[in-house]
């Protein structure tokens, strides 16, 4: 169920019988055909256990289930929308950035500390993401929101990418992240370059960066 890009801020999804689509509650802009929108009490997949996990992890963005036959247009808050197609790999993204995603994707939450130890936890605090993030795994598409367009930067062995934590949107693949701090005495006396924290992503995969340092 691929998403069609209508404008930089709107996507369209085809809904077929027997297929489900999850979207952020209230993100439907228009639809054609016979489509039903039901608030997803559990906020996605994994039943009650998944729901409790997300509640605990504070990754519970209200979702709705979209079913039926037709085309649905999604957009939210005038943010830019970027479509990511997964081919069996895992996407790591904040739940509030998810506009809509295929029901075929397995949804989970991940403790940031497990991907870089203590620094992963620090990273969560610095990026304002908290300590958990949402994972989507499998074959299908996800539409992710960003402030001001998205840049895709490939990560390869021996080619790590450094990202400003505030501009980080999402990443996929087998990637380790590490928060590197460049805090010297200059930052202490307020003469820093404004780039004191950098997120270093290494391994194999892709990182998505937004053209802005603002939150959604």
């Amino acid at each position, binding site marked *: 169920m691929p998403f069609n890009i209508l404008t930089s801020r709107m996507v369209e999804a085809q809904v077929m019988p027997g297929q489900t689509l999850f979207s952020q509650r209230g993100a439907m802009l228009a639809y054609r055909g016979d489509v039903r929108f039901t608030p997803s009490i559990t906020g996605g997949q994994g039943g009650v256990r998944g729901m409790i996990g997300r509640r605990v992890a504070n990754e519970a963005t209200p979702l709705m289930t979209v079913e039926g036959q037709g085309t649905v247009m999604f957009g939210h808050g005038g943010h*830019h929308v970027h479509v990511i197609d997964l081919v069996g790999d895992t996407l790591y993204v904040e739940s509030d950035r998810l506009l809509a995603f295929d029901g075929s994707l397995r949804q989970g939450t991940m403790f940031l500390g497990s991907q870089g130890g203590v620094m992963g936890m620090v990273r969560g605090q610095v990026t304002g993401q908290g300590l958990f993030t949402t994972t989507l795994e499998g074959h299908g598409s996800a539409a992710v929101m960003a*402030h*001001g*367009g998205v*840049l895709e*930067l490939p990560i390869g062995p021996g*080619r*790590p*990418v*450094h*990202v*400003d934590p505030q*501009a980080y949107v999402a990443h996929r693949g087998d990637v380790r992240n590490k928060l590197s701090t*460049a805090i010297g005495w*200059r930052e202490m006396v307020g*003469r*820093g*370059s*404004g*780039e004191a924290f950098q997120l270093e992503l290494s391994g194999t995969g892709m*990182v998505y*960066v*937004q*053209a*802005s*340092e*603002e939150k959604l």
Partner: protein
Amino acid sequence: MAQFRLQGSRVLAVDLTGDSVKAKNGAMVAYEGEMTFKKRTGGGEGLRGMVTRRLTGEQMAVMEVKGHGTCYFADRASEINLVSLQGEKLYVESSNLLCTDSALRTGTSFTGLRGSAQGNGLFTTTVEGTGQAALVSAGTAVVLRVTPQTPLQVDPGAYIAHTGGLKQHFQAGVNFRALIGESGGESFQIRFEGDGLVYVQPSERNTIGGEV
């Protein structure tokens, strides 16, 4: 020479091979390779620059980015415009300047009354030399040519930058209508005369002139 490339319209990619660029403080969003970031004070070189900056208030927090690889810059999702300078001087509001080649000299210049209407002081930043600079604008900027036969009037809030030999003065269209609150809402303009280019953004900053 650093290579400036646009990735889409809102991200600037700069390829560095051991050389450096000056950029707005904190504007880096990602980089590949080895980079170092050092804070500098903008608006001129050396002690003289310091004094003029203190006096003019045209302060710009600048960092020097040096290294090997590609550095990506962006500023609050603003559109980015590349300007190639061949020895001429670019006048630009410091808030609209994102990144300049280190080969370019930056300074401040007195603009007269225009600044007071824009609410950003009487001074503006100048960039001079040969190399590339990147400007940010709210929306895609248009470049308007000014010739001796065709002067140009610009809303102070929409003005970003200009190059060439231009004389500018401030004109007020305030008449009795404005005073009794029946004005057209466009009471102040900057008039450019001479030969050069003016960069205008399709959006207006809040200026004192906008209140009248």
